[in-house]
């Protein structure tokens, strides 16, 4: 009977619905199943590796039993990968470890261990290469894991092929989106949605909301249950939600609250098609809507897009907060050169020092830095651009800052390092003359104060260049000529410059 319910829903859902009215569901299913199995259409599945992520881009797909499956496997990564399809219930790690243990045989065998668990596999595919294999999908319904067995890849590089689909599935899912301010679920039937649409992925997802606060959504569709059983639903949301099946509330989760532990509701189902509706509203703050179901042999089937684990939404941030001491961090920063030194000062003024040109490139106020892109949140390779966490302000950087002897001299700047403790000081030389630049926040907390000190008094005039447009620039010494400050040797030994934006950024 299980086999008879093989994945025909995708092929001829409309026919099933028609038949149901007259003959009852099971008979219709049995008839159609035989047809579906024979007629399982050949299918082509495209799977690529994602560069640098140690992942397949497709982590689950569905085929009909007995279908001829052509897998086109493209390696977009810089490392070698393979693809092994395993029997249902196989432990991917155990299979991978057997592959690693092949030792000197591994390469010759394409990292495919000699185990009954392995059904089909590609060869090891080199970077930028594509391979394809064709196989006949098993007749037995179930979930067939797939995995890359090159050393270490198993931890993130895997997925699931479903044969005949899940015994429980959402179909014909549609959402309606509403806007309004509520403290509990409104009567959506009396409201006009701002937009409505079908959801081809059949996954509940609130990401289509057009704003973060004060909106509501309904999700309506058919819950297809292929095996009679008691189903357990779990629902968690921020803020309120309600789950209805066949028009009856299964879980009430109304009101304003954080997502918290899921609420549970149980319903005994006959095999068949049931009306499904989920209502949700968000007042302010965090948003979440997580719903899942278990039963009919399915341990846990998420019905919503998981915002916890979805590849697009993994929280990769790693915020560094400045407390009572300055923080000095070397990493790539969005908008900075490859060699960048970011400094966060207590009080919420931050800046980026460019050690190649020995000058501050820009400043920002507020929170300091998200170094998640550099650290890969402990998972990825990192090396991405870190993000500044506050509004940027200009400090008038416009190329080289110092020129010795004349305003047009191309003086050689050489970075020498920095003092990290206390208020950070930067060391560099201008045409061989050692300079210290101490950088602190201006007293109004809106700009930066530079204290320059030449180790030895220079013998010629020093020219200091800053693009003053839009800035308030105050100097302790020297004469301005346009954007160039000319300092006599005696003035240059120690001088101060403050730079603040004149208007709010």
């Amino acid at each position, binding site marked *: 009977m299980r086999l008879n319910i093989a994945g025909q829903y995708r092929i001829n859902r409309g026919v099933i619905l028609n038949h149901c009215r007259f003959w009852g569901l099971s008979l219709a299913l049995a008839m159609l199943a035989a047809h579906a199995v024979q007629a399982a259409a050949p299918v082509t599945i495209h799977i690529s590796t994602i*560069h*640098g992520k*140690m992942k397949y881009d497709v982590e689950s797909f569905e085929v009909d039993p007995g279908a001829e499956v052509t897998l086109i496997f493209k390696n977009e990564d*810089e*490392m*070698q990968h393979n693809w092994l399809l395993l029997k249902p219930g196989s432990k991917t*790690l*155990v299979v991978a*470890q057997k592959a*690693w*243990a092949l*030792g*000197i*045989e*591994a*390469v010759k065998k394409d*990292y495919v261990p000699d185990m009954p668990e392995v059904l089909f596999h590609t060869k090891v595919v*080199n*970077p*930028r290469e594509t391979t394809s294999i064709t196989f006949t999908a098993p007749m037995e319904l179930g979930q067939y894991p797939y995995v890359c067995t*090159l*050393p*270490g*890849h198993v*931890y*993130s590089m895997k997925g699931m092929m479903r044969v005949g689909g899940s015994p429980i599935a959402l179909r014909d899912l549609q959402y309606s989106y509403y806007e309004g301010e509520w403290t509990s679920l409104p009567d959506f039937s009396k409201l006009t949605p701002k937009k409505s649409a079908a959801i081809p992925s059949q996954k509940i997802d609130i990401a289509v909301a057009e704003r973060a606060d004060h909106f509501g959504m309904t999700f309506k569709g058919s819950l297809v249950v292929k095996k009679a059983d008691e189903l357990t639903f779990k629902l968690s949301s921020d803020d309120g939600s309600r789950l209805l099946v066949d028009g009856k509330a299964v879980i009430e989760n109304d009101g304003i609250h954080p997502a918290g532990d899921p609420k549970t509701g149980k319903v005994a189902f006959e095999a068949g098609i049931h009306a499904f509706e989920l209502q949700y509203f968000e007042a302010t703050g965090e948003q979440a809507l997580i719903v899942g179901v278990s039963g009919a042999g399915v341990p846990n089937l998420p019905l919503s897009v998981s915002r*916890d*684990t979805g590849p697009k939404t*993994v*929280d990769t941030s790693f915020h560094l907060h400045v407390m009572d001491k300055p*923080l*000095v*961090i*070397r*990493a*790539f920063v969005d908008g900075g050169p*490859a*060699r960048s030194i970011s400094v966060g000062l207590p009080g919420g003024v931050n800046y980026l020092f460019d*050690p*190649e040109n020995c000058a501050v490139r820009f400043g920002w106020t507020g929170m300091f830095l998200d170094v998640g892109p*550099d*650290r*890969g*949140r*402990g*998972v*990825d*390779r*990192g*090396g*991405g*651009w870190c993000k500044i966490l506050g509004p940027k302000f200009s400090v008038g950087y416009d190329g080289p800052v110092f020129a010795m002897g004349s305003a047009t001299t191309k003086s050689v700047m050489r*970075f*020498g*390092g*920095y*003092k*990290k*403790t206390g208020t950070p000081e930067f*060391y560099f030389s201008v045409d061989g003359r050692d300079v210290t630049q101490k950088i602190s926040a201006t007293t109004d907390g809106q700009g930066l104060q530079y204290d320059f000190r030449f180790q030895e008094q220079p013998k010629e005039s020093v020219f200091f260049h800053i693009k003053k447009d839009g800035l308030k620039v105050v100097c302790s010494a020297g004469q301005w000529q346009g954007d160039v400050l000319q300092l006599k040797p005696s003035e240059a030994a120690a001088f101060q410059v403050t730079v603040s934006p004149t208007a709010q950024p």
Partner: protein
Amino acid sequence: MKRFTLSLAPLFLSAAALVAADMRIPQGYRVETIDIPKNITLGVGGLAFNRAGELMISTREGEVWRYDTVKKTWNLFAEGLHEALGIYVDRKTDETWVMQRPEMTKLIDTDGDGKADIYKTVTAAWGLTDNYHEYAFGLVRDDAGNFYGTLNTTLSWVGWAGSDRWDIGRVHDSKMGRAAKYRGWSFMVTPQGEFVPFSNGMRSPCGLGRNKAGEIFYTDNQGDWNASSTLQQVVKGRFHGHPSSLMDDPKFAGKDLNQISVEEYDKMRTRPAIWFPHGELASSPGQPEFDETGGKFGPFEGQVIIGDQTRSNLMRAALEKVDGEYQGVVFDFIDPLQCGVVRNIFGPDGSLWTGETGRGWRSVGEVLFGLQRVVWDGQTVPTEMHHVSLTADGFEITFTQPMKREQLVDAATYAVKSWGYLYQGEYGSPKLDETSFPVTNIKASVDNTKVSFTVPLKEAKVYQITLRNLKSHADQPVTNPTGYYTLNHLRK
């Protein structure tokens, strides 16, 4: 943070124990795992011991930790570095240098509070773009006080990091290029801080080491122009085989590197001292660490231990000079550890400390970073091939202890085959002309610790020698019965 922990925890639990149970390790050795406090992410990039015998650890996360191996305390020495993939501590003066992506830096603790205050730039003479693959590795120092480091080539991949400067210096469609100056070079830094470009043709030169004589070696990773991973001697002016770096070689100024044929590059390059057969033994080797413990680590004084970042194993290589160049044999040693091994250092007591990271590439084992220590018990003699030497007409194997004579002299004990590799801009290489040989003319030494045999020899081949069921006189099997000898030069 909470979310992250939740999503990974089940994965780690399910993986635990499986790997450890299967670890292959010679008799007399044990592996200890160091507990790392929960708040520390220790993606190890460099290891060094200071004057007090504390372990200084630089990390991919940009920190330098001081670990007291006796009290087991952790103190932060420096932070905010840009991927600190190497550290060197002068054990007489405690002066400390790190290699980070943008520069080589001296870390100075001016007030003696145990934390660096001055981060002094020693040199930043190489080019750097925002390409994440432009790693800088180090640091070793010669007896004259010169430092050595290596610079990774640029990943030439569409779409990385959003930069438009990736497609520079690719030669014959290579996957790695040179988007900035001196990518693919090793360099020397004099005690005065002068940057001296040293050798070129490197691809992913993750690890550097030096032997007692002060000779420098590095490992490279399999990929374009690298048929398999390698151990190579770093000699001034040497070309190691990846052509992108030649853009910065004055001898090639103004030349189009794509007009130079693979055959010409092949003639220019120096062949590696050791090939690590890809996948079989290593996929991404790290630092070579020479055993100069005076026997505290067992019977392998003078040999070199190398870890692999992907396979999480330790390998052991014995080099010999033939016709003026190093070549030699490599064996698996301990396989696997808990995580990818990139750094090794022998401690003052002769134990081997291994620094581990799996982040981004993943490695065999369930953890993403770690620190382990390999200790020899000081008495048990492991049952291993100590080394394999090339003879005029075959090989001589020296064992760590007497073996069973009847097996030693039996040709059925030995399975020998050889193969070559392609030198090409494409990724990796298949094995070429894989050929098996019977061994003849077997001679065992009187004390049963050596055996020699004759096989047909050819240059530019890897010879794989596997012992079939050979046991010691004390009836112990050989823990790692396969050795790979890289034959570049015949004995003349």
